[in-house]
């Protein structure tokens, strides 16, 4: 179809998805970003959040913590070490991750940049549960 772009999500040990999609919303470092066909070539990186993929009017969600995004010639490439399908996250997993992050926030030596990322992580995880 003409309105589609190719999406690849790759983690170090596997290719999670490689298919044509209509649109993708990514949690870019400076805010959410929706990518449609013929978007300008782009390189950016991600903060914790959801990747929302629209395939044939169905939305699939992935949870990511970090990653690098390249868009070029209607090919969207997302490299991430931590993409999980939303359905695969269990309640216990989420609450453990929130707890861990909160412990991290207590640390006095934490840098502003990390704080920003961890805060986002907690927010996103709270949204699920």
């Amino acid at each position, binding site marked *: 179809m003409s309105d589609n772009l190719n999406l*690849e999500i*790759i*983690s*170090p*040990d*596997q*290719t999670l998805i490689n298919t044509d999609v209509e649109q993708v919303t990514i949690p*870019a*470092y*400076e805010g959410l*970003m929706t990518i449609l066909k013929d978007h*300008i*070539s*782009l*390189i*950016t*990186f991600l903060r914790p959040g959801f990747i929302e993929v629209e395939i044939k009017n169905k939305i699939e969600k992935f949870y990511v913590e*970090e990653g*690098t995004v*390249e868009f*070029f010639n209607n090919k969207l*490439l997302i*490299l991430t*070490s931590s993409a999980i399908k939303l359905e695969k996250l269990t309640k216990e997993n989420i609450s453990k991750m929130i707890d861990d992050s909160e412990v991290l926030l207590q640390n006095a030596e934490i840098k502003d940049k990390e704080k920003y990322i961890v805060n986002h992580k907690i927010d996103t995880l709270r949204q699920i549960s």
Partner: protein
Amino acid sequence: MPSLDDLRKRIVSVKSTQKITKAMKMVAAAKLRKAQDNAEKGRPYSEKMQNIILNLTDSISDPQNAPKLLIGTGKDRIHLCVVMTSDRGLCGGFNSNICRLAKKYFEKILKEGKDLKIITVGSKGHDQLKREYGKYIIKKLSFKNKKKISFIEADEVGKIILDLFDKNEFDKCILFFNNFKNVMTQIPEAQQIIPTEIKKDSKKSEEIFYEFEPDEDEILEDLLPKNISTQVFKAFLENSASEQGSRMTAMDSATRNAGDLVNKLTINYNRSRQAVITKELIEIISGAESL
């Protein structure tokens, strides 16, 4: 001439060795399939990451102030060599090949009067290098108790390297590992990871103009440390596939050798048994004749 009993014992022992090597070969073959799969699945990630970095460096505005991880410290004094080997033996020339390549490099470095620092990953490499280069080894890592090497372990190694780099402990970092080509061939390889080696493609297509968000420098700062761990992880994957492949071929030829040996011993055994029978017959006949 060994006695019949000795021969029989030897045949039995060679046969049981053969059983072991055969079993090891089967195990290696099963593990190989998995490791090969993992290595192949892992390749796109590191390749694409290299690609992005390449595109980024092309469009960097101020090369003088680029992150040190990319351009290096500007010196070439201290080399950090990360030698990645297996934790288990009986895999043919796997570990020796890496060590041989590494040693050649060490000699070159030392001859040029540069400083050398070594990190060994995997206990077998450490065993081989500690006698000659023991004083240069600054760290010894082993993931023996881990069943499967995941990105977390690679990240651990990557963090150690980055930590040392931040403390200005070295100028160049080289990774030694076995590149998995196919089951029969594994090629030991030295890959420079700091500063990032950029393979310039001569026939690179037209320049692409990217939009960066945030700016290039910030992306590079985020990406380069990740790239180190990624390269280490790639090396881990290639290595584990190579290890299994190497073990499989080694065990295969060991099984075949044991088979040859059993054949030879059996012929020997049959011959000496026949000799004993003939001797006894002669004794009986000559005894009967003399009566």
